[in-house]
């Protein structure tokens, strides 16, 4: 903890991430204005001219939309990463336990999934089940599975060579139990760090998807669609393009810094 306080990267990352979560949660109970309320007389007002951050082309309050956008972006990304990390890690440690042909099949499978960028798989999936939050979550999660499968397989294989695991095997402990008791707890730090970093990537991808109209449908405000809508008013109302992008960048920056900081804290050997 004392060491944590001396790490500026960790602290800045933590502060930004906490602020982001606070804003997202606050939007569930309070926003300055109802985010969907249109006041055409107040349309395209600059920041501070109306509300804190101005209004969009329908006279909706930008600050309120950004707050709700934070919740939508975070919840989608968290669900996607949670799904991808769970499936990927489970796959990774299972393969590490069994090895053999299964390892080959799963690793090839990872290569194949990795070859299709999430934007493309979301476009394809969207054509099946329609675009929306579910499509975004699944497409992002699918892309995360190989990331976590590779990471946890590599890390788990290392643990399997340790003396205490050999000892446990020698004592006749079943492999599944060894995985649960020895392997998973020992690779959890690496997984946690990766979750933080992948959350940032998920937010970027989600923003890209909603920018293309493949995310949550209107009128639900998302940062990506706010950016897409702003394109028509770049000359008249540049803040409409500035603010959602800033929100995305800040959120990703915070999560990346938090991830890096956590990596330093949790693994002092890896201080490059």
């Amino acid at each position, binding site marked *: 903890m004392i060491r944590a306080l001396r790490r500026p990267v960790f602290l800045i990352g933590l502060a930004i991430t906490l602020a982001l979560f606070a804003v997202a949660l606050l939007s569930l109970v309070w926003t300055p204005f109802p985010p969907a309320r249109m006041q055409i007389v107040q349309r395209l007002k600059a920041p501070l001219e109306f509300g804190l951050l101005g209004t969009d082309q329908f006279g909706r309050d930008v600050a309120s939309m950004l707050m709700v956008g934070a919740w939508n972006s975070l919840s989608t990304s968290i669900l996607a990463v949670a799904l991808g990390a769970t499936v990927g890690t489970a796959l990774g440690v299972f393969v590490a336990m069994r090895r053999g042909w299964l390892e080959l099949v799963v690793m*090839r499978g990872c*290569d*194949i999934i*990795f*070859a*299709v*960028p*999430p*934007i*493309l798989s979301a*476009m*394809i999936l*969207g*054509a*099946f089940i329609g675009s929306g939050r579910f499509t975004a979550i699944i497409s992002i999660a699918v892309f995360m599975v190989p990331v976590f499968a590779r990471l946890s397989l590599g890390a788990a294989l290392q643990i399997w060579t340790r003396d205490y695991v050999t000892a446990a095997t020698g004592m006749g402990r079943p492999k599944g139990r060894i995985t649960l008791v020895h392997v998973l707890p020992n690779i959890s730090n690496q997984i946690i760090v990766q979750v933080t970093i992948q959350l*940032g990537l998920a937010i*970027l*991808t989600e*923003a*890209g998807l909603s*920018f*293309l109209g493949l995310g949550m449908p209107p009128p639900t405000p998302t940062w990506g669609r706010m*950016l897409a809508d*702003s*394109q028509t008013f*770049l*000359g008249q109302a*540049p803040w409409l*393009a*500035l603010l*959602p*992008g800033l929100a*995305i*960048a*800040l959120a*990703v*920056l915070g999560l*990346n*810094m938090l991830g890096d900081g956590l990596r330093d804290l949790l693994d002092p050997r890896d201080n*490059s």
Partner: protein
Amino acid sequence: MISILVRRILSLIITLLIVSLVIFTVMDLLPGDPAAIMLGTSASPETLAALRTQLGLDQPLPVRYLAWLAGVFRGDLGQSYTYGVPVAGLIAERLSVTLPLALMAIVISVLIAVPLGVQAARRHNGVFDLVAGLFSYVSIAVPAFWVGLLLIIFFSTMLGWMPAGGFPGWDAGLLAGLQALLMPAVALALPQAGVLTRVARAAVLDVMNEDFVRTARAKGLSDGVAVWRHAVPNALVPVVTMLGLQFTFLIAGAVLVENVFNLPGLGRLAYQALSQRDIVVMQDVVLFFSGLVILMNFLVDLAYLAIDPRLRANAQ
């Protein structure tokens, strides 16, 4: 070495075949009848059936897959439902925008990242190192398509120096074409540059403590010459590797950035094909992109093997 190469190529071919099968099957399952989309809602059932036969849609899936695959090998990618032209020509035409765009983005990102990373490593823990670190943090966090919007606001609507989007075609002259691609390429390059700066910095830091760099300095070479002539070429290997691994993100970025700048590229083609249910185009474009990513990873693998004798020994 030869046997490893043969094994890697075989595995590459198998991966590509599996990917093509998956893509074909998934696309085939898409709801919506291409014949109905081409002819509209007013077409009679007989005309629809005739068109389906003509397109080969009445054949079973394995037959259609093999026919498609055979076509891919011949360079015949089928006919676009909506454009009514051969897909191969369509892809080639769009590639004349996307390929230069991607290349420009790679060049720009390397031009930013390598000097920045090298300088940061030389001034390790100094002010410049901190600034380079901040740059890479921020540039990794910003979405490429947002950078595109900011560039349009600043250079097109405010200053009026650059076109806000669109592509005049290469017939309008090399300069006009490059000018139209400059801002999109910068937008694509910036996030890449952030990642590459980190890699370059770490690589140079690693190499700087090696004996050969120390020897070069001891020989009387100046600090700068020793770093640029001896440390940097060695540090470029991880940079090139990272470029290969980041290729998926470059493609994803291109889909978005081409939409921001209204560029008639491959990413935009994929997006349009999907919204128009042009399955043939979609299949070919996704296969093309995926094949490119797989090929890039394969080349990175090979580069590793060629460079590091220890990996060769391992793979035997």
